[in-house]
Protein backbone atom coordinates (compact mmCIF):
# COMPACT_ATOMS: atom_id res chain seq x y z
CA UNK A 1 0.00 0.00 0.00
CA UNK A 2 2.90 2.36 0.54
CA UNK A 3 3.48 3.32 -3.09
CA UNK A 4 -0.16 3.51 -3.93
CA UNK A 5 -2.40 6.50 -3.39
CA UNK A 6 -4.11 6.21 -0.06
CA UNK A 7 -7.68 5.23 -0.49
CA UNK A 8 -7.03 3.76 -3.92
CA UNK A 9 -9.43 0.86 -3.78
CA UNK A 10 -8.30 -1.95 -6.04
CA UNK A 11 -10.25 -2.11 -9.23
CA UNK A 12 -11.66 -5.61 -9.57
CA UNK A 13 -9.87 -7.46 -12.33
CA UNK A 14 -7.17 -4.89 -12.84
CA UNK A 15 -4.14 -3.33 -11.25
CA UNK A 16 -4.61 -0.16 -9.24
CA UNK A 17 -3.90 2.84 -11.41
CA UNK A 18 -2.45 5.98 -9.99
CA UNK A 19 -2.91 9.57 -11.00
CA UNK A 20 -0.95 12.62 -9.97
CA UNK A 21 -2.64 15.88 -9.11
CA UNK A 22 -1.10 19.16 -8.12
CA UNK A 23 -2.66 20.63 -5.00
CA UNK A 24 -1.50 24.15 -4.15
CA UNK A 25 1.49 23.46 -6.37
CA UNK A 26 2.55 20.19 -4.74
CA UNK A 27 2.17 16.73 -6.27
CA UNK A 28 -0.47 14.48 -4.75
CA UNK A 29 -1.34 10.89 -5.67
CA UNK A 30 -4.93 9.97 -6.37
CA UNK A 31 -6.91 7.05 -7.72
CA UNK A 32 -9.19 7.09 -10.77
CA UNK A 33 -12.83 7.59 -9.86
CA UNK A 34 -12.09 9.57 -6.71
CA UNK A 35 -13.65 12.98 -6.30
CA UNK A 36 -11.27 15.87 -5.66
CA UNK A 37 -12.60 15.99 -2.11
CA UNK A 38 -12.10 12.24 -1.80
CA UNK A 39 -8.50 12.49 -2.96
CA UNK A 40 -7.69 15.36 -0.59
CA UNK A 41 -9.33 13.59 2.37
CA UNK A 42 -7.33 10.43 1.60
CA UNK A 43 -4.21 12.50 2.30
CA UNK A 44 -5.63 13.84 5.56
CA UNK A 45 -6.39 17.26 4.05
CA UNK A 46 -9.70 18.34 5.53
CA UNK A 47 -9.80 22.08 4.70
CA UNK A 48 -9.03 24.01 1.50
CA UNK A 49 -11.44 26.91 1.42
CA UNK A 50 -11.14 30.03 3.51
CA UNK A 51 -14.35 31.86 4.42
CA UNK A 52 -14.77 35.43 3.21
CA UNK A 53 -15.58 37.05 6.56
CA UNK A 54 -13.72 35.09 9.22
CA UNK A 55 -11.02 33.48 7.03
CA UNK A 56 -12.07 30.20 8.64
CA UNK A 57 -11.18 26.79 7.18
CA UNK A 58 -13.79 24.75 5.32
CA UNK A 59 -13.83 21.47 3.45
CA UNK A 60 -16.46 18.81 2.76
CA UNK A 61 -19.78 19.14 4.52
CA UNK A 62 -22.86 17.92 2.61
CA UNK A 63 -20.85 15.70 0.26
CA UNK A 64 -23.44 16.02 -2.53
CA UNK A 65 -23.11 19.48 -4.08
CA UNK A 66 -25.64 21.33 -1.94
CA UNK A 67 -23.65 23.37 0.60
CA UNK A 68 -20.79 24.86 -1.52
CA UNK A 69 -18.45 24.67 1.49
CA UNK A 70 -15.94 22.63 -0.51
CA UNK A 71 -15.29 25.19 -3.29
CA UNK A 72 -11.92 24.91 -4.97
CA UNK A 73 -10.23 26.08 -8.19
CA UNK A 74 -9.79 23.25 -10.71
CA UNK A 75 -7.51 23.84 -13.70
CA UNK A 76 -8.13 27.56 -13.37
CA UNK A 77 -11.93 27.25 -13.12
CA UNK A 78 -12.87 28.91 -9.83
CA UNK A 79 -15.65 27.85 -7.44
CA UNK A 80 -15.89 24.18 -8.37
CA UNK A 81 -17.39 21.76 -5.87
CA UNK A 82 -14.65 19.36 -4.76
CA UNK A 83 -17.27 16.76 -3.81
CA UNK A 84 -18.54 16.58 -7.41
CA UNK A 85 -15.45 16.97 -9.60
CA UNK A 86 -13.75 13.71 -10.50
CA UNK A 87 -9.93 13.67 -10.48
CA UNK A 88 -7.97 13.52 -13.75
CA UNK A 89 -4.28 12.94 -14.18
CA UNK A 90 -2.38 16.23 -14.09
CA UNK A 91 -5.30 18.18 -12.62
CA UNK A 92 -4.30 21.45 -10.92
CA UNK A 93 -6.22 22.07 -7.73
CA UNK A 94 -5.90 25.31 -5.83
CA UNK A 95 -7.47 26.02 -2.47
CA UNK A 96 -7.88 29.33 -0.71
CA UNK A 97 -6.96 28.09 2.76
CA UNK A 98 -3.23 28.06 3.50
CA UNK A 99 -1.98 24.52 4.17
CA UNK A 100 0.31 24.20 7.17
CA UNK A 101 3.39 22.02 6.75
CA UNK A 102 2.86 18.64 8.33
CA UNK A 103 -0.85 18.68 7.69
CA UNK A 104 -0.40 15.91 5.18
CA UNK A 105 0.12 12.34 5.93
Amino acid at each position, binding site marked *: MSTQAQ*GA*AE*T*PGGPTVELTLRFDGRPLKAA*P*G*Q*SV*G*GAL*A*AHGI*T*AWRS*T*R*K*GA*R*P*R*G*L*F*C*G*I*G*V*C*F*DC*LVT*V*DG*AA*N*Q*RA*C*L*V*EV*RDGMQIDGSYPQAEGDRQ
Partner: protein
Amino acid sequence: MSPGKVGSIMKADVAVVGAGPAGLAAAVAAAEAGALVAVVDAGAQPGGQFWRHRPETVVPEPDGSGHHGWRSYVDLRARFDAARRRGQIIYLPGLQVWMPEKNDAGFTLHTTPAVARARSEDAATNDPAGSGAGNGPAGSGTVVARRLVLCPGGYDRQLPVPGWELPGVMAAGGIQAFLKGNGTLPGRRFVVAGTGPFLLPVAAGIAEAGGQVLAVLESSSPAAWLPHLRAAAGVPEKALEGAEYAAVFARHRIPYRTRSIVTEILGQDRASGVRTAKVDADGRVRPGTEGVYDDVDVVGFGWGFTPQMELPVALGADTRLDADGSLVGIVDERQESSIPGLFLAGEVTGVGGASLAVIEGLTAGAAAARERAADKADASRATRHRRFAEAMHHAHPVPAAWQEWLTPDTTVCRCEEVTASQITEARDTLGARDSRSLKSFTRAGMGWCQGRVCGFAAGCLAAGQRVSASAQSLSDAAKRPLGAPVSIGELASLETDS
Protein backbone atom coordinates in the same frame (compact mmCIF):
# COMPACT_ATOMS: atom_id res chain seq x y z
CA MET B 1 -30.35 19.34 -28.29
CA SER B 2 -27.69 17.97 -30.48
CA PRO B 3 -25.28 16.56 -27.95
CA GLY B 4 -22.59 18.84 -26.70
CA LYS B 5 -23.90 22.05 -28.19
CA VAL B 6 -24.13 25.00 -25.88
CA GLY B 7 -27.42 26.82 -25.76
CA SER B 8 -29.27 24.21 -27.83
CA ILE B 9 -32.88 23.12 -27.34
CA MET B 10 -34.20 19.60 -27.08
CA LYS B 11 -37.86 18.62 -27.19
CA ALA B 12 -39.55 15.66 -25.53
CA ASP B 13 -43.03 14.54 -24.49
CA VAL B 14 -42.01 14.13 -20.87
CA ALA B 15 -39.06 15.69 -19.06
CA VAL B 16 -37.84 14.09 -15.83
CA VAL B 17 -35.53 15.93 -13.43
CA GLY B 18 -33.47 13.56 -11.30
CA ALA B 19 -32.14 10.04 -11.91
CA GLY B 20 -32.45 8.70 -8.38
CA PRO B 21 -35.01 6.06 -7.35
CA ALA B 22 -37.99 8.29 -8.24
CA GLY B 23 -36.56 9.74 -11.45
CA LEU B 24 -35.34 6.42 -12.86
CA ALA B 25 -38.73 4.84 -12.18
CA ALA B 26 -40.59 7.79 -13.71
CA ALA B 27 -38.43 7.77 -16.84
CA VAL B 28 -38.81 4.03 -17.33
CA ALA B 29 -42.58 4.09 -16.80
CA ALA B 30 -43.08 7.04 -19.17
CA ALA B 31 -40.88 5.51 -21.87
CA GLU B 32 -42.56 2.12 -21.57
CA ALA B 33 -45.91 3.87 -22.01
CA GLY B 34 -44.66 5.19 -25.34
CA ALA B 35 -43.47 8.71 -24.53
CA LEU B 36 -40.22 10.32 -25.67
CA VAL B 37 -38.51 11.15 -22.38
CA ALA B 38 -35.65 13.52 -21.55
CA VAL B 39 -33.93 12.87 -18.21
CA VAL B 40 -31.87 15.72 -16.73
CA ASP B 41 -29.76 14.86 -13.70
CA ALA B 42 -27.03 16.77 -11.91
CA GLY B 43 -25.22 13.51 -11.16
CA ALA B 44 -22.64 12.08 -13.55
CA GLN B 45 -24.35 8.67 -13.70
CA PRO B 46 -27.76 7.23 -12.71
CA GLY B 47 -28.55 6.34 -9.10
CA GLY B 48 -29.28 9.57 -7.23
CA GLN B 49 -28.40 9.56 -3.52
CA PHE B 50 -29.65 6.13 -2.53
CA TRP B 51 -28.03 4.19 -5.38
CA ARG B 52 -24.93 6.33 -5.69
CA HIS B 53 -22.03 4.09 -6.74
CA ARG B 54 -18.43 4.42 -7.81
CA PRO B 55 -17.86 5.81 -11.31
CA GLU B 56 -18.72 3.13 -13.86
CA THR B 57 -15.58 4.11 -15.75
CA VAL B 58 -13.65 2.59 -12.82
CA VAL B 59 -16.04 -0.10 -11.56
CA PRO B 60 -18.10 -1.04 -14.63
CA GLU B 61 -20.20 -3.70 -12.92
CA PRO B 62 -20.96 -2.71 -9.34
CA ASP B 63 -22.07 -5.68 -7.25
CA GLY B 64 -24.33 -3.63 -5.01
CA SER B 65 -22.46 -4.37 -1.80
CA GLY B 66 -23.29 -1.79 0.85
CA HIS B 67 -26.56 -1.06 -0.95
CA HIS B 68 -30.17 -1.84 -0.21
CA GLY B 69 -32.73 -2.56 -2.89
CA TRP B 70 -29.92 -3.06 -5.41
CA ARG B 71 -32.02 -5.62 -7.32
CA SER B 72 -34.63 -2.96 -7.83
CA TYR B 73 -31.89 -0.64 -9.15
CA VAL B 74 -30.53 -3.26 -11.54
CA ASP B 75 -34.03 -3.89 -12.92
CA LEU B 76 -34.79 -0.18 -13.39
CA ARG B 77 -31.36 0.45 -14.87
CA ALA B 78 -31.76 -2.35 -17.43
CA ARG B 79 -35.12 -0.93 -18.50
CA PHE B 80 -33.65 2.58 -18.56
CA ASP B 81 -30.76 1.45 -20.77
CA ALA B 82 -33.10 -0.52 -23.06
CA ALA B 83 -35.28 2.56 -23.54
CA ARG B 84 -32.17 4.59 -24.34
CA ARG B 85 -31.21 2.08 -27.00
CA ARG B 86 -34.69 2.37 -28.51
CA GLY B 87 -34.16 6.14 -28.57
CA GLN B 88 -37.02 6.68 -26.15
CA ILE B 89 -34.99 8.07 -23.28
CA ILE B 90 -32.52 10.85 -23.86
CA TYR B 91 -30.28 10.95 -20.83
CA LEU B 92 -28.60 14.23 -19.93
CA PRO B 93 -26.34 13.72 -16.90
CA GLY B 94 -24.13 16.36 -15.31
CA LEU B 95 -26.68 19.08 -15.92
CA GLN B 96 -28.41 21.07 -13.23
CA VAL B 97 -31.74 22.76 -13.84
CA TRP B 98 -31.39 26.30 -12.59
CA MET B 99 -34.71 27.61 -13.82
CA PRO B 100 -37.96 25.90 -14.80
CA GLU B 101 -40.72 27.77 -16.67
CA LYS B 102 -44.35 26.99 -17.50
CA ASN B 103 -45.51 28.21 -20.90
CA ASP B 104 -47.79 27.35 -23.82
CA ALA B 105 -45.57 24.48 -24.95
CA GLY B 106 -45.67 22.95 -21.46
CA PHE B 107 -42.45 23.35 -19.53
CA THR B 108 -39.01 24.73 -20.32
CA LEU B 109 -35.97 23.76 -18.26
CA HIS B 110 -32.83 25.89 -18.34
CA THR B 111 -29.74 23.93 -17.40
CA THR B 112 -26.10 24.51 -16.54
CA PRO B 113 -23.23 22.02 -16.21
CA ALA B 114 -22.87 20.79 -12.61
CA VAL B 115 -19.11 20.67 -13.01
CA ALA B 116 -16.88 22.80 -15.23
CA ARG B 117 -15.70 20.64 -18.11
CA ALA B 118 -12.07 19.97 -18.82
CA ARG B 119 -10.86 21.52 -22.04
CA SER B 120 -9.97 18.07 -23.34
CA GLU B 121 -13.59 16.97 -22.91
CA ASP B 122 -15.01 19.76 -25.02
CA ALA B 123 -15.37 17.62 -28.12
CA ALA B 124 -18.79 16.01 -27.91
CA THR B 125 -18.82 12.28 -27.54
CA ASN B 126 -21.91 10.19 -27.91
CA ASP B 127 -21.54 7.29 -25.56
CA PRO B 128 -23.44 4.13 -26.33
CA ALA B 129 -26.68 3.79 -24.44
CA GLY B 130 -26.04 1.61 -21.44
CA SER B 131 -22.88 3.28 -20.33
CA GLY B 132 -23.26 5.47 -17.29
CA ALA B 133 -22.31 8.45 -19.43
CA GLY B 134 -25.08 10.19 -21.29
CA ASN B 135 -25.93 11.42 -24.71
CA GLY B 136 -22.88 13.62 -24.95
CA PRO B 137 -21.51 15.88 -22.25
CA ALA B 138 -24.01 18.58 -23.04
CA GLY B 139 -23.17 22.21 -22.43
CA SER B 140 -25.81 24.36 -20.82
CA GLY B 141 -28.96 23.79 -22.81
CA THR B 142 -32.71 23.93 -22.72
CA VAL B 143 -35.24 21.12 -22.51
CA VAL B 144 -38.84 21.67 -23.61
CA ALA B 145 -41.53 19.12 -22.76
CA ARG B 146 -45.30 18.90 -22.61
CA ARG B 147 -45.23 17.28 -19.17
CA LEU B 148 -42.69 17.49 -16.39
CA VAL B 149 -41.88 15.05 -13.57
CA LEU B 150 -39.72 16.57 -10.83
CA CYS B 151 -37.75 14.05 -8.75
CA PRO B 152 -34.97 16.20 -7.24
CA GLY B 153 -34.77 14.33 -3.92
CA GLY B 154 -33.45 16.04 -0.83
CA TYR B 155 -30.49 16.48 1.47
CA ASP B 156 -29.71 15.98 5.17
CA ARG B 157 -31.52 18.40 7.44
CA GLN B 158 -29.21 20.19 9.85
CA LEU B 159 -29.48 21.84 13.23
CA PRO B 160 -26.65 24.20 14.18
CA VAL B 161 -24.57 23.30 17.22
CA PRO B 162 -21.49 25.08 18.60
CA GLY B 163 -18.49 24.17 16.45
CA TRP B 164 -20.41 22.53 13.57
CA GLU B 165 -18.64 24.78 11.06
CA LEU B 166 -15.29 23.09 11.77
CA PRO B 167 -13.82 20.88 9.01
CA GLY B 168 -14.42 17.24 9.88
CA VAL B 169 -18.09 17.89 10.65
CA MET B 170 -20.20 16.47 7.82
CA ALA B 171 -23.75 15.64 6.97
CA ALA B 172 -24.43 12.00 7.88
CA GLY B 173 -25.61 11.41 4.32
CA GLY B 174 -22.47 13.15 3.10
CA ILE B 175 -20.35 10.49 4.79
CA GLN B 176 -22.50 7.84 3.14
CA ALA B 177 -22.20 9.58 -0.24
CA PHE B 178 -18.42 9.86 0.20
CA LEU B 179 -18.18 6.14 0.90
CA LYS B 180 -20.49 5.10 -1.93
CA GLY B 181 -18.81 7.42 -4.43
CA ASN B 182 -15.13 6.97 -3.48
CA GLY B 183 -15.15 3.53 -1.91
CA THR B 184 -13.18 4.95 1.02
CA LEU B 185 -13.89 6.81 4.26
CA PRO B 186 -13.26 10.52 4.96
CA GLY B 187 -11.56 9.72 8.29
CA ARG B 188 -10.86 6.98 10.85
CA ARG B 189 -12.79 7.74 14.01
CA PHE B 190 -16.41 8.80 13.74
CA VAL B 191 -19.30 9.97 15.88
CA VAL B 192 -22.73 9.93 14.20
CA ALA B 193 -25.52 12.01 15.76
CA GLY B 194 -29.00 13.37 15.15
CA THR B 195 -32.20 11.39 14.83
CA GLY B 196 -33.89 8.78 12.69
CA PRO B 197 -33.34 5.28 11.35
CA PHE B 198 -31.01 6.67 8.65
CA LEU B 199 -28.21 7.04 11.25
CA LEU B 200 -28.05 3.22 11.31
CA PRO B 201 -26.97 2.58 7.69
CA VAL B 202 -24.48 5.43 7.96
CA ALA B 203 -22.79 3.95 11.04
CA ALA B 204 -23.02 0.39 9.67
CA GLY B 205 -21.45 1.52 6.39
CA ILE B 206 -18.55 3.20 8.21
CA ALA B 207 -17.90 0.12 10.35
CA GLU B 208 -18.11 -2.30 7.41
CA ALA B 209 -15.61 -0.11 5.51
CA GLY B 210 -13.14 -0.34 8.39
CA GLY B 211 -13.81 2.91 10.23
CA GLN B 212 -14.35 3.12 13.95
CA VAL B 213 -17.70 4.40 15.14
CA LEU B 214 -17.20 5.68 18.69
CA ALA B 215 -20.93 6.16 19.17
CA VAL B 216 -24.25 6.79 17.50
CA LEU B 217 -26.16 9.43 19.44
CA GLU B 218 -29.91 9.38 18.83
CA SER B 219 -31.92 12.21 20.39
CA SER B 220 -35.14 10.22 20.48
CA SER B 221 -35.88 6.94 22.23
CA PRO B 222 -37.15 3.61 20.88
CA ALA B 223 -40.20 4.00 23.10
CA ALA B 224 -41.28 6.79 20.76
CA TRP B 225 -42.16 4.06 18.22
CA LEU B 226 -44.62 2.31 20.58
CA PRO B 227 -47.72 4.24 19.53
CA HIS B 228 -46.86 3.56 15.87
CA LEU B 229 -46.20 -0.16 15.82
CA ARG B 230 -49.13 -0.90 13.51
CA ALA B 231 -47.79 1.47 10.88
CA ALA B 232 -44.33 -0.02 11.26
CA ALA B 233 -45.66 -3.57 10.84
CA GLY B 234 -47.17 -2.55 7.50
CA VAL B 235 -43.70 -2.44 5.96
CA PRO B 236 -42.01 -5.64 7.19
CA GLU B 237 -38.89 -5.11 5.04
CA LYS B 238 -37.98 -2.19 7.29
CA ALA B 239 -37.90 -4.45 10.34
CA LEU B 240 -35.66 -6.82 8.41
CA GLU B 241 -33.31 -3.98 7.50
CA GLY B 242 -33.30 -2.90 11.13
CA ALA B 243 -32.30 -6.42 12.20
CA GLU B 244 -29.41 -6.39 9.72
CA TYR B 245 -28.11 -3.15 11.17
CA ALA B 246 -28.48 -4.47 14.70
CA ALA B 247 -26.25 -7.39 13.71
CA VAL B 248 -23.62 -5.05 12.25
CA PHE B 249 -23.77 -2.89 15.40
CA ALA B 250 -23.26 -5.97 17.58
CA ARG B 251 -20.42 -7.30 15.43
CA HIS B 252 -18.53 -3.99 15.52
CA ARG B 253 -19.59 -3.11 19.08
CA ILE B 254 -21.00 0.24 18.06
CA PRO B 255 -22.57 1.96 21.09
CA TYR B 256 -26.07 3.21 20.26
CA ARG B 257 -27.01 5.88 22.81
CA THR B 258 -30.59 7.08 22.80
CA ARG B 259 -31.85 10.37 24.26
CA SER B 260 -28.31 11.63 23.61
CA ILE B 261 -26.95 14.55 21.64
CA VAL B 262 -23.69 16.27 20.70
CA THR B 263 -23.66 19.61 22.53
CA GLU B 264 -20.41 20.97 21.12
CA ILE B 265 -17.69 20.09 18.62
CA LEU B 266 -14.21 20.57 20.02
CA GLY B 267 -11.16 21.66 18.02
CA GLN B 268 -9.31 24.69 16.70
CA ASP B 269 -9.06 24.40 12.93
CA ARG B 270 -10.70 21.00 12.59
CA ALA B 271 -12.92 18.77 14.66
CA SER B 272 -10.99 16.78 17.25
CA GLY B 273 -13.69 15.70 19.69
CA VAL B 274 -17.25 16.21 20.85
CA ARG B 275 -19.07 17.01 24.07
CA THR B 276 -22.23 15.01 24.59
CA ALA B 277 -25.17 14.96 26.97
CA LYS B 278 -28.34 13.04 27.72
CA VAL B 279 -31.59 14.86 27.01
CA ASP B 280 -35.20 14.60 28.12
CA ALA B 281 -38.09 13.87 25.77
CA ASP B 282 -38.10 17.51 24.61
CA GLY B 283 -34.38 17.55 23.94
CA ARG B 284 -33.46 19.56 27.05
CA VAL B 285 -30.00 18.69 28.38
CA ARG B 286 -30.11 16.72 31.66
CA PRO B 287 -27.51 18.30 33.97
CA GLY B 288 -24.82 15.95 35.18
CA THR B 289 -24.93 13.69 32.10
CA GLU B 290 -22.25 15.47 30.10
CA GLY B 291 -19.48 13.42 28.48
CA VAL B 292 -16.65 13.82 25.98
CA TYR B 293 -15.33 11.78 23.05
CA ASP B 294 -11.71 12.60 22.22
CA ASP B 295 -9.69 11.88 19.12
CA VAL B 296 -12.60 12.14 16.69
CA ASP B 297 -11.89 12.82 12.97
CA VAL B 298 -15.36 13.06 11.57
CA VAL B 299 -18.69 13.97 13.16
CA GLY B 300 -21.76 13.16 11.06
CA PHE B 301 -25.09 14.93 11.67
CA GLY B 302 -28.49 14.06 10.30
CA TRP B 303 -31.83 15.38 11.54
CA GLY B 304 -33.95 13.81 8.84
CA PHE B 305 -34.01 15.23 5.32
CA THR B 306 -35.06 18.42 3.61
CA PRO B 307 -36.74 17.95 0.23
CA GLN B 308 -35.31 20.14 -2.59
CA MET B 309 -38.33 22.34 -3.13
CA GLU B 310 -36.93 25.13 -5.28
CA LEU B 311 -38.15 23.77 -8.63
CA PRO B 312 -41.74 22.96 -7.51
CA VAL B 313 -41.92 26.29 -5.65
CA ALA B 314 -40.56 28.21 -8.64
CA LEU B 315 -43.36 26.72 -10.79
CA GLY B 316 -45.98 27.71 -8.22
CA ALA B 317 -47.03 24.21 -7.10
CA ASP B 318 -49.14 24.12 -3.92
CA THR B 319 -47.23 22.98 -0.83
CA ARG B 320 -47.88 21.87 2.74
CA LEU B 321 -45.96 21.12 5.93
CA ASP B 322 -45.35 17.40 6.37
CA ALA B 323 -45.31 15.51 9.70
CA ASP B 324 -41.54 16.12 9.99
CA GLY B 325 -41.90 19.89 9.58
CA SER B 326 -40.57 19.85 6.00
CA LEU B 327 -42.17 21.76 3.16
CA VAL B 328 -43.43 19.24 0.57
CA GLY B 329 -45.48 19.37 -2.64
CA ILE B 330 -49.19 18.48 -2.67
CA VAL B 331 -50.08 15.79 -5.23
CA ASP B 332 -53.13 13.73 -6.17
CA GLU B 333 -53.17 9.92 -6.46
CA ARG B 334 -51.47 10.21 -9.87
CA GLN B 335 -48.67 12.31 -8.34
CA GLU B 336 -49.91 15.37 -10.25
CA SER B 337 -49.37 18.69 -8.49
CA SER B 338 -51.71 21.69 -8.44
CA ILE B 339 -50.10 22.74 -11.75
CA PRO B 340 -51.60 20.66 -14.59
CA GLY B 341 -48.94 18.55 -16.29
CA LEU B 342 -46.47 18.95 -13.41
CA PHE B 343 -45.88 15.70 -11.52
CA LEU B 344 -43.82 15.27 -8.35
CA ALA B 345 -42.30 12.05 -7.02
CA GLY B 346 -39.86 10.96 -4.31
CA GLU B 347 -38.69 13.05 -1.38
CA VAL B 348 -40.39 16.25 -2.69
CA THR B 349 -43.81 14.82 -1.83
CA GLY B 350 -42.70 13.80 1.67
CA VAL B 351 -39.55 12.14 2.97
CA GLY B 352 -40.34 8.43 2.81
CA GLY B 353 -37.31 6.50 1.55
CA ALA B 354 -36.28 4.92 -1.70
CA SER B 355 -38.97 2.20 -2.00
CA LEU B 356 -41.73 4.77 -1.80
CA ALA B 357 -39.82 7.00 -4.21
CA VAL B 358 -39.79 4.18 -6.78
CA ILE B 359 -43.53 3.53 -6.46
CA GLU B 360 -44.29 7.24 -6.78
CA GLY B 361 -41.95 7.53 -9.76
CA LEU B 362 -43.64 4.64 -11.59
CA THR B 363 -47.06 6.21 -10.99
CA ALA B 364 -45.93 9.70 -12.02
CA GLY B 365 -44.12 8.51 -15.14
CA ALA B 366 -47.06 6.46 -16.39
CA ALA B 367 -49.49 9.27 -15.67
CA ALA B 368 -47.28 11.87 -17.37
CA ALA B 369 -47.01 9.71 -20.49
CA ARG B 370 -50.75 9.36 -20.88
CA GLU B 371 -53.87 10.00 -18.89
CA ARG B 372 -54.06 7.03 -16.61
CA ALA B 373 -55.34 6.25 -13.16
CA ALA B 374 -52.88 5.06 -10.56
CA ASP B 375 -52.29 1.32 -10.37
CA LYS B 376 -54.31 -0.07 -7.43
CA ALA B 377 -51.58 -2.37 -6.10
CA ASP B 378 -49.00 0.43 -6.31
CA ALA B 379 -51.40 2.77 -4.56
CA SER B 380 -51.87 0.46 -1.59
CA ARG B 381 -48.12 -0.21 -1.30
CA ALA B 382 -47.52 3.53 -1.39
CA THR B 383 -50.08 4.02 1.38
CA ARG B 384 -48.32 1.49 3.63
CA HIS B 385 -44.96 3.19 3.04
CA ARG B 386 -46.43 6.62 3.73
CA ARG B 387 -47.92 5.41 7.03
CA PHE B 388 -44.52 4.06 7.99
CA ALA B 389 -42.85 7.36 7.07
CA GLU B 390 -45.34 9.31 9.15
CA ALA B 391 -44.73 7.03 12.15
CA MET B 392 -40.99 7.54 11.65
CA HIS B 393 -41.40 11.33 11.61
CA HIS B 394 -43.40 11.22 14.84
CA ALA B 395 -40.91 8.87 16.52
CA HIS B 396 -37.89 10.93 15.45
CA PRO B 397 -38.86 14.59 15.70
CA VAL B 398 -36.48 17.51 15.74
CA PRO B 399 -36.25 17.98 19.53
CA ALA B 400 -38.55 20.81 20.60
CA ALA B 401 -35.87 22.43 22.77
CA TRP B 402 -33.02 22.36 20.24
CA GLN B 403 -32.64 26.15 20.24
CA GLU B 404 -31.48 25.93 23.85
CA TRP B 405 -28.33 24.10 22.68
CA LEU B 406 -27.06 27.21 20.89
CA THR B 407 -24.65 29.72 22.37
CA PRO B 408 -24.89 33.36 21.20
CA ASP B 409 -21.89 32.95 18.90
CA THR B 410 -22.91 29.62 17.36
CA THR B 411 -22.79 29.93 13.57
CA VAL B 412 -26.23 29.37 12.05
CA CYS B 413 -25.72 30.42 8.41
CA ARG B 414 -22.43 28.78 7.43
CA CYS B 415 -22.06 30.67 4.13
CA GLU B 416 -22.49 34.21 5.44
CA GLU B 417 -21.22 33.34 8.92
CA VAL B 418 -24.29 34.67 10.72
CA THR B 419 -24.51 33.77 14.42
CA ALA B 420 -27.46 32.75 16.56
CA SER B 421 -27.41 36.05 18.47
CA GLN B 422 -27.49 38.07 15.24
CA ILE B 423 -30.59 36.16 14.23
CA THR B 424 -32.40 36.40 17.56
CA GLU B 425 -31.53 40.11 17.72
CA ALA B 426 -33.00 40.69 14.27
CA ARG B 427 -36.08 38.77 15.43
CA ASP B 428 -36.51 40.56 18.75
CA THR B 429 -35.52 44.13 17.84
CA LEU B 430 -36.33 44.33 14.12
CA GLY B 431 -39.27 41.96 14.02
CA ALA B 432 -37.71 39.53 11.56
CA ARG B 433 -40.09 36.62 12.13
CA ASP B 434 -39.71 34.74 8.84
CA SER B 435 -36.90 33.69 6.57
CA ARG B 436 -37.46 36.49 4.07
CA SER B 437 -37.02 39.37 6.54
CA LEU B 438 -34.15 37.47 8.20
CA LYS B 439 -32.35 37.42 4.86
CA SER B 440 -32.61 41.15 4.39
CA PHE B 441 -31.60 42.02 7.98
CA THR B 442 -28.85 39.48 8.61
CA ARG B 443 -27.93 37.92 5.21
CA ALA B 444 -28.72 34.48 6.69
CA GLY B 445 -29.55 32.29 3.69
CA MET B 446 -28.06 34.72 1.14
CA GLY B 447 -24.76 32.93 0.51
CA TRP B 448 -23.61 30.26 -1.90
CA CYS B 449 -26.05 27.57 -0.73
CA GLN B 450 -28.95 30.06 -0.75
CA GLY B 451 -30.25 28.87 2.58
CA ARG B 452 -30.42 25.17 1.73
CA VAL B 453 -28.35 24.24 4.79
CA CYS B 454 -29.57 26.77 7.38
CA GLY B 455 -33.05 27.43 5.96
CA PHE B 456 -34.95 25.15 8.32
CA ALA B 457 -33.03 26.19 11.46
CA ALA B 458 -33.04 29.90 10.63
CA GLY B 459 -36.78 29.72 9.91
CA CYS B 460 -37.39 28.09 13.32
CA LEU B 461 -35.16 30.64 15.11
CA ALA B 462 -37.04 33.50 13.49
CA ALA B 463 -40.36 31.97 14.52
CA GLY B 464 -39.24 31.88 18.17
CA GLN B 465 -38.41 29.42 20.94
CA ARG B 466 -39.99 25.99 20.57
CA VAL B 467 -41.85 26.95 17.40
CA SER B 468 -41.19 25.33 14.06
CA ALA B 469 -40.88 27.27 10.84
CA SER B 470 -44.19 27.93 9.07
CA ALA B 471 -44.98 26.68 5.57
CA GLN B 472 -44.90 30.30 4.35
CA SER B 473 -41.47 30.91 5.82
CA LEU B 474 -40.05 27.67 4.39
CA SER B 475 -41.63 28.40 1.04
CA ASP B 476 -40.04 31.87 1.01
CA ALA B 477 -36.73 30.23 1.88
CA ALA B 478 -37.14 27.83 -1.07
CA LYS B 479 -37.83 30.75 -3.47
CA ARG B 480 -34.39 31.02 -4.89
CA PRO B 481 -33.88 33.36 -7.79
CA LEU B 482 -31.73 30.62 -9.35
CA GLY B 483 -31.81 26.88 -8.72
CA ALA B 484 -28.01 26.84 -9.11
CA PRO B 485 -25.28 29.44 -9.61
CA VAL B 486 -25.08 30.25 -13.34
CA SER B 487 -22.94 32.37 -15.61
CA ILE B 488 -23.95 35.77 -16.96
CA GLY B 489 -23.98 34.20 -20.43
CA GLU B 490 -26.59 31.67 -19.37
CA LEU B 491 -28.72 34.43 -17.86
CA ALA B 492 -28.43 36.47 -21.03
CA SER B 493 -29.43 33.49 -23.17
CA LEU B 494 -32.89 33.51 -21.55
CA GLU B 495 -33.89 36.36 -23.84
CA THR B 496 -33.40 34.29 -26.97
CA ASP B 497 -34.46 30.89 -25.62
CA SER B 498 -37.99 31.50 -24.57
